[in-house]
């Protein structure tokens, strides 16, 4: 405060600009529009004027806030043992803290202005050098104003710190209160019993009187309102139950005829049949109570009683449904745990008994509070209830639930010991006089137990959902399958994802609930959860879970948008435009890659991942990775080029090196080709770009086929040519333009070689055409008597010794035969006769 006054005084001095300044500039400090006043001076003075008003207002605000804070602190000191007051104060303090921050933030723009202005004025002059007085004055004024602002912000900061520490103190006080209440001890002795009994009778009387008086009151004065409220309450009940049954009836009903329900359906029925009816009852109670309250039918104490009644009924109902769900005492096929039937029934009744006793105890406590009964009654009631519940829990521990070879086996030790301890604790606590602690234990057994069992069922459900084919058979799964037309593998993946999501949801919902039961305050839980979600620091590397989820969500959204865009473009735009199938495929794939890349970038950006730390490591590794990935990147880029340039499209017949076949699919890394032997060959794209690729069906399906034939020397060449042309022209698959052409290739070693060259409409028919023509040609040549010779060789025998022809023949025959033996085509032997 003192500082503010001091600073305020200094500032007041600056407000009165020295007379010479006023004389020099005819413009008054508030006049900002004189054109030939030095441009530097005019705006600043008006700025100063604005600033000082704001600062004064701000100072008042902060003073007011400080007063508020002091008031609240005083109230805090007065109410250190009043939990509700503490909660209220905490809320007020938090609002105050926000207010302080807001005020301080409002000073920010002015500070910015001042800083900008100071920058404009430039650096202060060095020693000895003087600057124009206007500038010096302004600079001084600005610096003083800045100092004031800083001081004010400092004040706000201090205030904020104090308020925060007060809030912390409230938290501590409440925790202390809680522990103190729990550990308050009451001496128990026999006099208590007599006192308690008398007081109990008294209390019953009082309760009867109280309720009776209220009933009389209602009957006399509020009968219509009461009936009206009852009517609406019943209406609400009808809506909730009938509507609920209609909507989710199938989910929560166990079909007794079904002897082997799947695990998932068992678990999901268990889950829904416990939660949904309990939720329905809760909603009904809330609605009914609000109607009654709204119609002003309830008295204050009756309202409390009804509230307690509603609470305990809901909890008991929930326990009933849960126990039925898990133990399924009457429908063994639907049981979730492996327990024999008789023990299951026993356990069910035990659970119900525990819940009922605890419920009675709670209701009785509320009654005692409302009627202001003496402490002894409460202690006695809690004692009775604790002993009963303790014994019941013992009984649970003694049950033999599992089927064994000879009769039933007991619980494993790991479960029995905690159960016995759990049974002993309320008894001990109550006997020793720690009444509140005993009640607390009872409460926890029932409520935390119920929550834990619900969570357990939920976990089982999540696990079952991740099993193979399980998700696809559920209601939700079927809907999703229809909506997105997914196949089995995709549904399984969805199931796994659904399982994970369910697990997380259960943890997020269940753990805070349990913590709340244990006295942690909602604010604290939320604050620590928020801190964990927002920042997880590991050394100098921190990331935020929340931001990470946000990033993943953004990516998923982007992915689906991309798929939708692909589909839309393909179906609506390109199909209508009758674009070629190959082009469509290319565009579709390209958009897919682009969309996913963009989604990934935005997702990573949203996730707040700062990769600068990785940059160093990545830089070092990049050399190695680069070398290793060079082929893949080569293929990837080649794939992109293929998509863009389209030297071939899906369905073309291409020849790549030694491989030829039909293109099936062009992916980013490789292209799939199917050979005519129906073998799929996967060619890396780089090979298709770096080497020559032949495409039979690039522009059209036209193709040329050559059929070679050799006819014997001596045949009529022109006749052969005519035959060939005739056959070619008669074939329907041969084009007339370009027309078939017979090419007399060569005078071969053994034959006259002709080649028939025909163009086909569809080069894929080449084998058929060649077959047809060759068959026809063979028949025709045979018919015409034109010979297709074998490979021919002329042999010239230069000299043959006579002994070669030595055979036992008559002399004249010998010489004749010798002559005849000479090959027909031999050259005439000059030595022959």
């Amino acid at each position, binding site marked *: 405060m003192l500082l503010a006054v001091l600073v305020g005084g200094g500032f007041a001095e600056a407000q009165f600009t020295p007379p010479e300044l006023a004389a020099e500039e005819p413009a008054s400090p508030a006049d900002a529009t004189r054109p030939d006043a030095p441009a530097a001076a005019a705006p600043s003075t008006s700025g100063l004027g604005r600033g000082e008003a704001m600062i004064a207002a701000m100072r008042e605000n902060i003073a007011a806030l400080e007063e508020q804070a002091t008031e609240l602190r005083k109230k805090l000191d007065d109410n250190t043992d009043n939990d509700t007051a503490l909660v209220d104060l905490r809320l007020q303090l938090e609002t105050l803290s926000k207010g302080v921050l807001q005020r301080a933030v409002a000073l920010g723009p002015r500070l910015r202005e001042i800083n900008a202005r100071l920058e404009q004025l430039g650096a202060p002059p060095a020693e000895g050098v003087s600057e124009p007085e206007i500038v010096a004055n302004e600079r001084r004024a600005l610096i003083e104003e800045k100092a004031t602002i800083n001081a004010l912000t400092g004040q706000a900061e201090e205030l904020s710190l104090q308020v925060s520490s007060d809030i912390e103190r409230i938290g501590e006080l409440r925790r202390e209160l809680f522990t103190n209440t729990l550990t308050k001890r009451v001496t128990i002795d026999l006099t208590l019993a007599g006192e308690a009994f008398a007081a109990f009778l008294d209390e019953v009387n009082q309760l009867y009187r109280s309720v009776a008086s209220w009933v009389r009151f209602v009957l006399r004065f509020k009968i219509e309102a009461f009936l009206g409220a009852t009517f609406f309450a019943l209406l609400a009940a009808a809506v909730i139950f009938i509507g609920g049954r209609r909507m989710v009836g199938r989910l929560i009903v166990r079909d007794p005829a079904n002897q082997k329900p799947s695990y998932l359906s068992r678990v999901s029925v268990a889950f829904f049949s416990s939660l949904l009816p309990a939720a329905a009852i809760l909603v009904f109670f809330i609605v009914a109570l609000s109607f009654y309250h709204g119609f002003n039918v309830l008295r204050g104490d009756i309202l409390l009683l009804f509230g307690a009644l509603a609470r305990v009924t809901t909890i008991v109902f929930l326990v009933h449904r849960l126990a039925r769900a898990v133990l399924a005492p009457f429908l063994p096929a639907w049981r979730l745990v492996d327990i024999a039937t008789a023990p299951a029934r026993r356990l069910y009744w035990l659970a119900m008994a525990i819940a009922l006793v605890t419920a009675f105890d709670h209701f009785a406590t509320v009654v005692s509070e409302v009627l202001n009964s003496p402490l002894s009654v409460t202690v006695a009631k809690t004692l009775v209830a604790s002993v009963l519940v303790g014994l019941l829990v013992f009984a649970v521990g003694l049950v033999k639930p599992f089927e064994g070879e000879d009769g039933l086996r007991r619980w494993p030790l790991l479960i029995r010991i905690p159960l016995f301890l759990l049974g002993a604790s309320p008894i001990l606590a109550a006997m020793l006089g720690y009444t509140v602690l005993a009640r607390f234990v009872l409460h926890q057994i029932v409520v935390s137990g119920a929550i834990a069992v619900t969570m357990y069922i939920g976990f089982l459900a999540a696990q079952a959902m991740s099993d193979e084919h399980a998700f696809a058979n559920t209601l939700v799964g079927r809907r999703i399958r229809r909506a997105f037309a997914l196949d089995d593998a995709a549904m399984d993946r969805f199931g796994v994802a659904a399982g994970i999501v369910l697990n997380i949801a259960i943890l997020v919902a269940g753990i805070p609930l349990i913590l709340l039961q244990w006295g942690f305050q909602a604010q604290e839980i939320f604050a620590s959860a928020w801190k964990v979600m*927002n920042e997880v620091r590991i050394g100098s590397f921190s990331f935020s879970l929340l931001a990470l989820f946000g990033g993943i969500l953004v990516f998923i959204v982007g992915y689906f948008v991309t798929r939708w865009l692909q589909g839309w473009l393909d179906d609506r735009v390109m199909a209508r435009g009758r674009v070629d199938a190959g082009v469509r495929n290319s565009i579709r794939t390209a958009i897919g*890659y682009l969309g996913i890349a963009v989604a990934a970038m935005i997702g990573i950006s949203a996730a707040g991942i700062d990769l600068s730390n990785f940059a160093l490591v990545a830089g070092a590794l990049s050399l190695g990775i680069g070398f290793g990935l060079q082929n893949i990147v080569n293929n990837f880029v080649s794939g992109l080029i293929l998509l863009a340039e389209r030297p071939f499209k899906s369905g073309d017949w291409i020849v790549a090196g030694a491989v030829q076949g039909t293109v099936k699919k062009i992916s980013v890394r490789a292209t799939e080709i199917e050979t005519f032997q129906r073998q799929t060959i996967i060619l890396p794209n780089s090979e298709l770009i770096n080497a020559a690729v032949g495409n039979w069906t690039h522009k059209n399906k036209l193709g040329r086929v050559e059929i070679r034939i050799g006819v014997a020397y001596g045949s009529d060449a022109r006749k052969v040519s005519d035959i060939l042309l005739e056959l070619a022209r008669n074939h329907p698959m041969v084009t007339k333009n370009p027309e078939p052409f017979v090419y007399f290739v060569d005078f071969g070693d053994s034959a006259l070689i002709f080649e028939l060259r025909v163009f086909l409409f569809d080069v894929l028919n080449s084998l058929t055409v060649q077959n047809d023509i060759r068959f026809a040609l063979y028949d025709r040549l045979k018919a015409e008597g034109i010979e297709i010779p074998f490979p021919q060789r002329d042999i010239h025998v230069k000299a043959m010794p006579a002994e070669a022809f030595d055979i036992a023949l008559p002399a004249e025959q010998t010489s004749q035969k010798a002559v005849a033996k000479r090959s027909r085509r031999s050259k005439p032997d000059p030595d022959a006769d």
Partner: protein
Amino acid sequence: MNRFVFATLAGLLLAAPAFAASATNGDAEARTLIVTEGDGRSELTLNPGETVDFCPSGCFVTMPNGDRVALTGSETVEIRGGSGNVK
């Protein structure tokens, strides 16, 4: 799945977080900000060129040159010449 691999390979970006205020040190030497958040004061030292996220839910910041500012958690602070510009 191939698509995912290549899409993520193709799009790595250094990120700007979205949920807290950030401060960037534009000077050539390390600067210290004094941050009062909730119930405690702490010092935040920034190396030259470093960007740090802090203050997700409102705080008071004292700049190296003594200026004091209140932030709500969505601003960017740039430190130049010892003084901070809040955007």
